[in-house]
């Protein structure tokens, strides 16, 4: 008796307190019925990894710190590149090698320091020296190679013109570089603060709220590792208004059930910011209830998942990483690739692995995700359909004795989603082709290492676009010796088209990129499976939350209404 009674009274008391706290009673601004407590709170499953823009690579980190750092350019909600600290697009010399950037003259860091061209040059050189995962953003700039090797301190291609303008000279024309200048590695950091806090290439300053200084609308006010992070708007922000929020509180709660429970008792404003998602069961539950569905926002995300096939035909062929032949390689393996792709009923896959279509949808238009530039169009991929009879006949032609698929192992990096996909693929291949494929999970680190060495005959691959430009896909995945390929695919024609297209601005090269995409589809280089969806669970009294294909909305867009 006593225990339950204690429970109950505690629960009631708690419920009452949290209701009052969360709703903040009456009052609020004028006709908008704003709540008096404008604190946005949301959970993360894992703590942020890197807080220094020069090191950042995970979507979690980037989505959060976009609100505290900014650079010359940014992407708007439609993924168009627009000026942020720059006054306008760069002036590009006729030979395509020199970019001149002009800065606004009223930009200040959150501590009041003015932002000048020197700060940008310092930031970019520092990022090149530190060699974080995205330092290659500066690779086209002259002098980058020496800096990246540690031989030089600064890139020769960066030159100051005056306090508010500077130029960057490239070694060769690169049509995609303008897009890359909007990425996080190029966000400006405060040289004065960093050098005062320690060595200029150290990152400790970024984890300390007192020294984590940027030009964004918010600044970090508190951080307890693996527990919580707090932000507040920058007073007198150089760009004007920072929105309505007065505080942003992020908690690290590893258990998704606990997150959802707290969300449902109004402890969190939303779940989904910073690349978070819901458990399959929770999202299905919300999606199938007419009332609950209103809180669920499903936004297409710029990520494609596909079946990776290994194109190694022998030791060193076609890539130096190859150690032996693979059944799926080259022309000899084409029938196999087609059979394996046709044998998958993507509707069933989406139903089971994508939580009934709430976490991802069928990929029918090539490897570049729908909504991004370079997408081929709905239902343009003839191999991304389900045709059991054809799959079986192709398979019989390709491997009548079953020797090619003996002990076939499909490897993926550990995650609940990857596991669900592999299990479904294995079940369908067994059911439709009578081929037994074993699913093996590897931890992320060794998986990527092995995959880069083209170790796996068939494997999970997935790519989340860093920016909306096809070069991000081809240069890293499909050109010969591409850094993240995993397939050791090599097609000289494709390489040539890539070099040509990369040099031109996108308006002139888009058709070439699409043609390249078509080559991939025609040759079933990838077994395209699904396009990603970003899930947001948002209370009806929160407006302005959500995101576009690559990022969440800025926190300055969010308002909390009375509730």
């Amino acid at each position, binding site marked *: 008796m006593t225990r339950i009674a204690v429970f109950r009274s505690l629960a009631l008391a708690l419920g009452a307190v949290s209701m009052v706290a969360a709703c903040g009673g009456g009052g609020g601004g004028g006709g908008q019925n704003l709540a008096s407590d404008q604190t946005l709170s949301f959970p993360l499953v894992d703590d942020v990894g890197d807080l220094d823009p020069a090191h950042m690579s995970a979507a979690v980190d980037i989505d959060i710190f976009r609100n505290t750092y900014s650079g010359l350019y940014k992407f708007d909600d439609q993924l168009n590149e627009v000026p942020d600290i720059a006054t306008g697009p760069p002036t590009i010399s006729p030979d395509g090698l020199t970019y001149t950037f002009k800065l606004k003259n009223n930009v200040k860091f959150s501590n009041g320091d003015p932002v000048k061209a020197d700060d940008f040059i310092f930031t970019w050189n520092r990022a090149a020296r530190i060699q974080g995962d995205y330092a290659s953003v500066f690779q086209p700039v002259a002098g980058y190679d020496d800096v990246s090797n540690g031989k030089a301190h600064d890139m020769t291609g960066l030159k100051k013109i005056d306090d508010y303008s500077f130029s960057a000279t490239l070694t060769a024309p690169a049509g995609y570089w303008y897009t890359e200048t909007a990425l996080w590695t190029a966000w400006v950091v405060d040289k004065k603060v960093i050098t005062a806090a320690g060595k200029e290439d150290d990152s400790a300053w970024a984890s300390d709220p007192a020294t984590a200084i940027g030009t964004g609308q918010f600044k970090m006010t508190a951080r307890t590792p693996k527990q919580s992070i707090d932000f507040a708007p920058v007073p007198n922000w150089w760009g004007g208004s920072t929105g309505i929020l007065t505080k942003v509180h992020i908690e690290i709660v590893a258990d*998704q*059930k606990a997150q959802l429970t707290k969300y449902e008792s109004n402890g969190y404003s939303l779940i989904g910011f910073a690349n978070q998602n819901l*458990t*399959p*069961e*929770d999202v*299905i*539950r919300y999606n199938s209830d007419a009332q609950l569905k209103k809180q669920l926002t499903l936004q297409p995300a710029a990520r494609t998942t596909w079946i990776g096939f290994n194109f190694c035909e022998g030791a060193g062929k076609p890539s130096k990483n190859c150690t032996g032949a693979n059944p799926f390689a080259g022309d000899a393996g084409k029938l196999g690739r087609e059979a394996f792709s046709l044998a998958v009923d993507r509707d*069933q896959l989406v*139903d*089971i692995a994508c939580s*009934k279509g709430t976490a991802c949808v069928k990929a029918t238009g090539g490897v570049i995700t729908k909504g991004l530039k370079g997408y081929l169009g709905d239902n343009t991929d003839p191999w991304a359909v389900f045709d059991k009879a054809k799959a079986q006949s192709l398979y019989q032609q390709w491997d009548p004795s079953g020797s090619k698929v003996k002990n076939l192992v499909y490897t993926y990096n*550990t995650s609940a989603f990857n*596991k*669900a996909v*592999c*299990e*479904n693929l*294995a*079940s*369908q291949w*067994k*059911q439709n082709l009578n081929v037994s494929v*074993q*699913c*093996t*999970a*590897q*931890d992320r680190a*060794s998986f990527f290492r092995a995959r880069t060495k083209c170790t796996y005959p068939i494997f999970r691959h997935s790519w989340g676009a860093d920016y909306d430009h096809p070069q991000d896909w081809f240069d890293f995945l499909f050109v010969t010796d591409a850094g993240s390929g995993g397939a050791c695919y090599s097609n000289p024609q494709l390489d040539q088209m890539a070099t040509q297209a990369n040099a031109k601005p996108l308006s002139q090269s888009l058709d070439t990129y699409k043609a390249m995409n078509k080559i991939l589809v025609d040759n079933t280089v990838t077994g395209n499976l699904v396009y990603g969806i970003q899930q947001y669970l948002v209370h009806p009294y929160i407006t302005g939350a959500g995101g576009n294909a690559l990022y969440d909305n800025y926190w300055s867009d969010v308002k909390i209404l009375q509730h």
Partner: protein
Amino acid sequence: MAQAAPVIQPDLELAYEMPEQATLLTDAWRRIRRNRLALVGMVIIGILFVTAAISIVWTPYPTWLQAVGPTYQPPSLGHPLGLDQAGRDILSRIMGGALITVEVGVGSAMIVSLIGIPLGLLAGFYRGTVDTIISFFINIWYGIPDLLVALILVFVLSDALHLIPRGVFVIIIAFSLTRWMDVARLVRGQTLALREREFVEAARMSGARDFALLFRHIFPNALGPIIVQATFAIPAAVLFEAFLSFLGLGLPSPTPSWGAMAADGYHGMDFAPHIVLAPTIALSITLMAFNWVGDGLRDAFDPRMRR
């Protein structure tokens, strides 16, 4: 024992009167027959073994086949235990899990005995340096959460060094490498006590060699507690595997291990409780059964304990 350290061991390490070998087993059998819980346990274990055997050749649906029906479907006539989050038949997977349970449990009990018994015999019989070395190893683990070391071992052997692929074998190895000490300690205690007994003296005086002494005289008399210990090793191993699979470090998917099934169904607990209930209940009943039988065997082999 079902959980971590063997807490009840202190009782068994005392030397006590053993009935003569000829009637040991029949005597024990007579006693255990009167223990109702142990009998129930034995029936359950019997069902487990039979189910495991049947699952090798037949299950209502293949354990790996997805989309047999709508996902998360609750129990119905066609699927008495319902369908899981991928539309697989849960009854079939429970049957497959029974096989895994038997493999892991019996396999571990065998290996752990194979390592622990000889080492314990040697330590107890020869004493001196041999004993010191073996006892050192036995004692070093006393303060360590051995389950966690076994976990790290599985991880290192499988995922990191790729020496042994993920599967029942590596789990048995990891478990045995961290738990042989319990068996060894028990056998050592028994041997220490028994080696002083008259029948051993008599055998020695009639010229029996060490090896014969150990295996024809001492070992059979220690058999009772050894059997009990082995019986308790089974649920400990099953628990270890379920624990690993629940954390995602166990058998590769889609192996229908009960622990893995519990992990699958855990997130959907509110939504579809049948998915998590089936394997957890199966696991609990099986572990209980082994513990009842183990308790019964221990009481049966020990004439001093009367209820």
